[in-house]
């Protein structure tokens, strides 16, 4: 069955399903009519560059995306829908075995059409060292972004997605397989698009995988940002951490839902999830639902936590005694809160580049 037929054969997802509890499919469908698969879907412009200098040998962008093995099971509705509209707009970022350029590679995705979609496949070779920033920018009403990928054995990857879209809706679906002994830092930075629905899934299907999922989310005005993160431990001796920081201002709403699933046989799994929400305006709302399913008893430990609160009064007072106004102190604390995960996503070089790019957004919010 092709993707279009598969999508059309599915029923509307139920609200009782964890993924769809807060942002229903109808709300993030490009036309709002869920029986519709739009014909006119634009293809964003994709290009590779480096922060400093030319794109090094050993990494390339190829048109088309092949199938990958070991991917986590994605939500049938979103993945079949995006696959159906990205048949002509799929790309592969191919990274050679042993690649180690020592600099950050940027994948720019620039959107121009009102409705756009792209499928990006990451194929990372064995023992490669890759630092990749996927920079999503431009203006559109709706962007669908499907990212599939497999990290090669023993590889070391920083995979950061930055969403600075000017308004509109972003539907992002990630399905990444963490190979044997590979280390992955998966970062999400979101301060763009009015509505975001993202479903990020990672499968640790081989022993020795090490995954660190990080989020720096800034919502303001009427934004509605809903991120769902699933981590599946399907092999022994796997390690995962999730640290998700959301700062919520204006009348915005952020949702962070997590699912940590430790399958039977995943002995020695060590997994933890932490969602933290900083409420910076009285009308903002933050919801967190970190779920845990553990079917193996020989685990190092599995846990999750969530905390929500306003800017700490003691910290404001402390900075006040150092001569900062309340507004300056508040801005500094919010920036520090977001930076605590941002700074863990990659090298100092990448961090400086990200901070410079995001400064305008923070300034616009008075942060």
């Amino acid at each position: 069955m092709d993707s279009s037929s598969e999508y059309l054969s599915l029923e509307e997802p139920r609200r009782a399903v964890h993924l769809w509890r807060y942002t229903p499919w109808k709300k993030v469908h490009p036309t709002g009519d869920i029986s519709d698969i739009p014909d006119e879907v634009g293809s964003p412009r994709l290009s590779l560059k480096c922060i400093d200098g030319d794109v090094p040998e050993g990494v390339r962008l190829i048109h088309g995306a092949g199938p990958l093995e070991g991917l986590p099971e994605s939500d049938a509705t979103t993945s079949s829908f995006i696959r159906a509209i990205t048949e002509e707009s799929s790309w592969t970022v191919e990274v050679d075995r042993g690649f180690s350029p020592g600099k950050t590679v940027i994948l720019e995705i620039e959107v121009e059409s009102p409705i756009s979609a792209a499928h990006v496949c990451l194929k990372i070779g064995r023992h490669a060292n890759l630092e990749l920033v996927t920079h999503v920018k431009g203006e559109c009403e709706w962007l669908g972004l499907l990212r599939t990928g497999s990290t090669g054995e023993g590889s070391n990857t920083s995979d950061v997605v930055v969403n600075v879209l000017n308004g509109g809706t972003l539907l992002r679906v990630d399905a990444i397989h963490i190979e044997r002994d590979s280390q992955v830092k998966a970062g999400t930075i979101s301060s763009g698009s009015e509505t975001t629905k993202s479903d990020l899934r990672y499968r640790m299907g081989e022993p020795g995988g090490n995954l660190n999922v990080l989020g720096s989310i800034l919502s303001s005005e009427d934004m509605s940002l809903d991120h769902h993160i699933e981590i599946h431990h399907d092999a022994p001796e796997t390690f995962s951490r999730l640290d998700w920081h959301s700062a919520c201002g204006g009348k915005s709403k952020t949702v962070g839902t997590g699912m940590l699933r430790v399958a039977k046989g995943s002995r020695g799994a060590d997994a933890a999830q932490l969602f933290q929400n900083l409420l910076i305006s009285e009308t903002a709302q933050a919801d967190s639902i970190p779920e845990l399913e553990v079917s193996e008893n020989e685990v190092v430990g599995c846990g999750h936590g969530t905390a929500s609160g306003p800017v700490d009064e003691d910290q404001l007072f402390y900075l006040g005694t150092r001569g900062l106004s309340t507004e300056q102190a508040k801005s500094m604390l919010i920036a520090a809160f977001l930076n605590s995960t941002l700074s863990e996503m990659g090298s100092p070089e990448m961090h400086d580049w990200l901070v410079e790019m995001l400064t305008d957004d923070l300034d616009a919010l008075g942060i």
Partner: protein
Amino acid sequence: MSQPSEAREAVGDYKAGWHDPENSTIRFDFGLSEKVVRDISELKSEPEWMTEMRLKAYRHFTERPMPDWGNTEVLEGIDFDNVCYFLRSSDETGETWEDVPEDIRNTFERLGIPEAEQKWLSGVTAQYESETVYHSIREDLEKQGVVFLDMDSGLKEYEEIVRRYFGTVVPFSDNKFSALNTAVWSGGSFIYVPKGVSVEMPVQAYFRINAKNMGQFERTLIIADEGSSIHYVEGCTAPTYSTDSLHSAVVELIALPGAHIRYTTVQNWSNNVYNLVTKRGVAHEDSKIEWVDGNIGSKLTMKYPAVILKGEGSHAEVISVAYAGAGQHQDAGAKVHHLASNTTSNILSKSISKDGGRGSYRGMAKIMPKAENCRMNIVCDALILDEGSRSDTYPTMEVGNASAHCEHEASVSKVGDEQLFYLMSRGHTEAEALGMIVNGFFEPFTKELPMEYAVELNKLMALEMEGSIG
């Protein structure tokens, strides 16, 4: 005492698993219909409004689909047509144990209820199948105006109060099982504590299912008037049969300004009972509601004691433990809704999974936009004792006010080898060491129980831990 071998195999070594011969005075046929609902109401000579409410609830029950969340596979196993919805074992409620039919009295004696009553209780109600068979309250409390009745008598004697509060905390439309309970409820407790009266010793209700394929649908309503306090304790057991029984209760608590209600449950149903209960309290200004909830038995428990913090300065406390053994799924948790400012809540949940059992915590903590300066803290700990067992945590936190401080943490682990090694180096066997660790794990719950319950629970857990090493 008879115990079919197939049932013994199915449910293991369950202490309260005997059953008595069934000597019912009225027994309805299996299955649910509008006629069954009308007959129950007529049998109890209820006022018209209650019959109407039952019928509306019945219609809602038939229209409402089964929950599409939780352990839907096990839930689908409930055969509503193969349940007896009303069974009367005794024609009247006894005021002394001598008034209770001998076989039923023996049952409660074996469960230790009359003995406990003499020692440490302010009042007792004992429900056998659908109705209360024994009821008593200390004279001094009665003189102070404390009302402690079975729900059927409460409706007869205090109709106005019941009409004012019944279904206000848990409306029949809340969920499929609250609709079922409202349609066929029978028994349960009705308690009213007048202004400023503090009931020092706990009152207890004991629920026993004896018959096969029985449905028990008690309804409890507790109203604590301004500045009063009460501690209500309930215990539950059932015989071991190879067919399933259904327990679907609704409990409504109303804590008026400054009142304090503590509701303690030690549920030890046999492993053939579906335990699907809706428990909810409304806390007014400066009042406090505490749920202390222990779930040891049952096939599937779905129970999430809830508190609606409606009045400023009110507080909710939920302490729950669950033990999930072979063939069991304990899906328990807590819900707290902060509607008013300066409200606080604490949830502590602990579960143990063993022999392939599944323990789940499912919670909802919500802070409404207009509720300023609220605090909530949720802690869930789970132990998985062996291969094949499972533990899940499904918490939800919705924070709609920026001044709120909310925290949730959960952990799943096995019993630490270091802990076992330490205790064994002090001369304990491995099994003893495990038993001590498990009792220590449950200690935040047991220390909140009346002593007799705590001792019994510790013994019960030691029994469950037998054979878990090696």
